[in-house]
């Protein structure tokens, strides 16, 4: 091959362009179909949510949004008609997801900093323990955790869904890897020579450096917490629900009222959908990064 004479940079570029085959019309067509398949169920929830129930049973089915969305939203939020308070649910979920996100990012960064840059006895063993906890299916502990919550008096209180989620082994590991690779020891030495305690080093050196990965971890944590269902269903009743519990309660109370149920569903998806449209690139990067770290 003639590549011998080429400059290395050029060679790499050529190799990549060679390796990635061009996308033909077939590729675009297939991907467009996948896109339609991905978006359709969400679009469909909007269609049903913007009609009254007679449209659901119409033949042939109605495929375009109608004008009843405001009416359905009014039924959902303000009429006092439904069996669960959606305002409470939205506020609760916002509180839970925000608290959990901040705690996970902060605790992960602190622990990640200690594991990456500080020397202490038992460091290796403790890090291995963190990784090992990722393999334990926590669902298994649901029954005793529930008993614990009863003892604490936390049933139907938001602490019950916040407290068990304040830390994340995946978060600690992700932060540790990132800090090892991106915060030079010299920078930390310099700060300590200047008289910083470790907390000062964390605050002035580490925290600014981990901002990109903190954003990714925060986004993924927020989404997971917003969508969490099983545990909130177990410990929170319809009186003080998260949004997922509220939607599920609504669906069990209004079995035939598809317009109302899918209005609730649509409301529950909308905030994350907005976040996704604005920050989708970061979310994708986060998923792919998580994949590489395994």
């Amino acid at each position, binding site marked *: 091959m003639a590549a011998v004479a080429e400059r290395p940079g050029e060679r790499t570029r050529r190799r990549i*362009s060679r390796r*990635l*085959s*061009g*996308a033909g019309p077939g*590729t675009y067509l297939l*991907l467009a179909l996948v896109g339609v*398949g*991905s*978006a359709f*169920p*969400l679009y*469909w*929830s909007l269609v049903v949510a913007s009609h009254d129930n007679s449209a659901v*049973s119409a*033949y*042939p089915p109605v495929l375009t949004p109608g004008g009843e969305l405001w009416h359905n939203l009014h039924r959902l939020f303000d009429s006092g008609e439904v069996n669960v308070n959606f305002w409470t649910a939205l506020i609760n979920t916002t509180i839970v997801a925000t608290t959990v996100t901040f705690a996970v990012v902060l605790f992960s960064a602190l*622990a990640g900093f200690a594991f990456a840059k*500080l020397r*202490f006895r038992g460091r290796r063993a403790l890090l291995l323990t*963190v990784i090992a*906890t990722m393999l334990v*299916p926590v*669902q*298994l*502990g*649901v*029954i*005793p*955790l*529930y008993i*614990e919550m009863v003892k604490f008096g936390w049933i139907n209180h938001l602490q019950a869904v916040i407290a*068990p989620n304040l*830390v994340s082994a995946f978060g600690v590991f992700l932060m540790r890897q990132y800090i090892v690779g991106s915060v030079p020891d*010299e920078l930390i030495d310099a700060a*300590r*020579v200047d008289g910083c*305690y*470790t907390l000062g080093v964390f605050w002035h050196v580490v925290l600014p450096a981990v901002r990109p990965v903190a954003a990714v971890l925060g986004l993924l944590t927020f989404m997971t917490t917003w*969508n969490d*269902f*099983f545990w909130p269903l*177990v410990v929170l009743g319809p009186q003080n629900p998260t949004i*997922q519990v509220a*939607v*599920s309660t609504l*669906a*069990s109370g209004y*079995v035939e009222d598809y317009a109302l*149920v899918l209005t609730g*569903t649509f409301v529950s*998806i909308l905030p*994350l959908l907005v976040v*996704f449209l604005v920050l*989708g690139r970061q*979310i*994708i990067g986060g*998923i*792919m990064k998580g*994949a590489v770290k395994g």
Partner: protein
Amino acid sequence: MHSPTEPRRRSGVRGRLHRLDAKVSPYAYVSPFFLLFIVFGLFPLGYTAYVSLTDRTLLSSDTHFVGLENYANLIHDSYFWNAVGNTLGIWIISTVPQLLIALGLAHLLNTKLKARTFFRMCVVLPQVTSLVAVALIFTQLFSRDYGLINYVLQLFGIHHVNWESGRLSSWFALSVMVTWRWAGYNALIYLAAMQAIPGELYEAAAIDGARAWKQFLHVTVPMLRPTIIFTVIISTIGGLQLFAEPYLFEPLKQGATGGSARQYQTVVMYMYEKAFAGTQFKFGYAAAIGWGLFLLIALISLVNFLIVRRIRTAEA
């Protein structure tokens, strides 16, 4: 690694404080994780083992130690084995197509695409949707009388399929929900791994005369094997704990029985039914179901592992 950072030797109180800080603070920084894990992870886990040996119901004070009775009952409990069968069945018919589709999608995305981010966003959009929303939207789409899916089938002369009432048909509907939500996520994971495959391998294959399909089969797939194993493990752990979709697929959405004939009740649903649905509150028995599920997950992971090792030695 660079030698650990030590503050320059100082004398006096400040120096002593610094040394104390260097010694103690690391433990303070990792302690939130361990404290919370012990209280909300480790302790409950150990406690489940104990609870499963009692006849505990909710918080009744007269809890008796019953030894292995719960487990003995579990082995003869046909509802439990029915739930195990359903869970395995739904897991297989949702994991296999999901991972195959993901592989194909990643292959499509691993090209010189215009609007790359847009297409990637299309693929992960379902992942952003909550389990509850997925379940409710698809339950409507699959409904017998007014569902869009039955409407389309009707155009081909198939009338009023009652997806919910049949065993295989309900499994199929559930597998569609799972596949829809997770295929794109796995595709992104495969894509990340595909991008790390060195180009030389493709060049070599091309020189050997391998066309695109052969390259995919003989270069891409073998190089992805660790990633494929990773996704299989993740979907096993997730799939065997399936709950939200079948729970909400039920018309009344609160019994957790998985249909009138328990045709799609999963193990987690059965655990939920015993502990929280209705008035049974059989916590001891539910804890035993939990351990049954744990064994099932461990067993299948072991089988996965053995198969993988078998393939490796066969190749070596």
